[in-house]
């Protein structure tokens, strides 16, 4: 008997899963588009989870309302599909929740779903950006402790491997950095490696270089 109840509840939950699945697609696509260079780390942040969760939560809530009030008993799958797709589209369209009766009242009174969603989206985006930047700053702080020649060598290797930057341009840049103090120079070299190689690659390389240096320094 408990198995039947469980099976029934799983079958009953399937349309909700469809709504949730559809609701995940939109915010994930928005994150993919905004954080092209660092998608995985962006998706791993708390703020990305909150952004996706709010999207899913609202979609499921709307489906629950629709299914209780309206037509879901007849065809729950269709209701789930319509809610899953329709709600996301509605959220991003300029449907006004509050519209002033007179034009003089201005836009201050006007309130649209897209505005609200846009503000929430921007807030989450800023928080994700900030979280990613803080991680990068911490990595740069570690990187500038490396000997300068190691960073220069890595830069040369990376630039030559990419084929996009002519070697003489890299050499003249290294020369141009000669006017800076060593820490500033190391920061710029490390920033190039971080940005061009990506966070994960640079972190891994940093770990390898540090352990190589330790081994070389060990008696």
């Amino acid at each position: 008997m408990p198995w039947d109840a469980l099976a029934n509840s799983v079958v009953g939950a399937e349309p909700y899963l469809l709504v949730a699945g559809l609701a995940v697609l939109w915010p994930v696509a928005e994150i993919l588009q905004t954080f092209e260079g660092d998608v995985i780390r962006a998706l791993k942040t708390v703020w990305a989870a909150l952004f996706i969760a709010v999207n899913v939560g609202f979609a499921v809530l709307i489906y629950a309302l629709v299914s209780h009030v309206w037509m879901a008993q007849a065809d729950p799958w269709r209701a789930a599909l319509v809610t899953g797709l329709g709600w996301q589209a509605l959220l991003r369209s300029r449907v006004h929740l509050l519209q002033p009766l007179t034009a003089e009242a201005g836009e201050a009174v006007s309130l649209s779903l897209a505005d609200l969603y846009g503000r929430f989206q921007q807030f989450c985006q800023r928080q994700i950006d900030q979280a990613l930047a803080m991680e990068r700053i911490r990595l740069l702080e570690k990187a500038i402790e490396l000997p300068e020649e190691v960073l220069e060598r890595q830069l040369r290797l990376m630039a030559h491997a990419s084929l996009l930057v002519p070697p003489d341009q890299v050499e003249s840049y290294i020369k141009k950095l000669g006017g800076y103090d060593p820490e500033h120079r190391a920061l710029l070299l490390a920033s190039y490696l971080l940005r061009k190689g990506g966070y994960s690659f640079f972190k891994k390389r940093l770990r390898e270089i540090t352990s190589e240096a330790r081994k070389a320094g060990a008696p």
Partner: protein
Amino acid sequence: MSEMEMLSQAGDRNTQVNVADALLQIAQQLTQIAQTLNSQGSAPREAQQLEESAQKLKAVSQRVADSAEQTRQAAAETHERERLRMAILQELLRGAALPVELAAVTLSLPEEIQPVLEDLEREEMITIQSIQGGHLIRLTPLGRVEARRLQSRVRLSGLR
């Protein structure tokens, strides 16, 4: 600046250089004539006047040459700014960046990208947000559109 404007500026500069060269040659010829007259001793006053004219022409030629050099430097600066602007916008498509990252990835110095960032902020292409430990630069929706436009233009020119 558009390619046409840059070409036209380059044309102006070439004209200035040609004018400066022509003036200098005329001045040299006048000096030669003055020297010949002096050596013959036939018309010392005219020779002196010719020499004075040659000196004035040399001065004018120098001014034109200086102006051509200034035009060249201004064009080079504008070109470099345009290159940095494109590179920064395209880099920001990959996500927000610290100023030092933008400087490094465009193979320039932080002080070189500073005016470009100020311009882009004024044009509402980017926002500069203060965060703990520095500033974070990100594209605005307008900047994103511009960056994508530049990216497709670069791709198209690569295909041609």
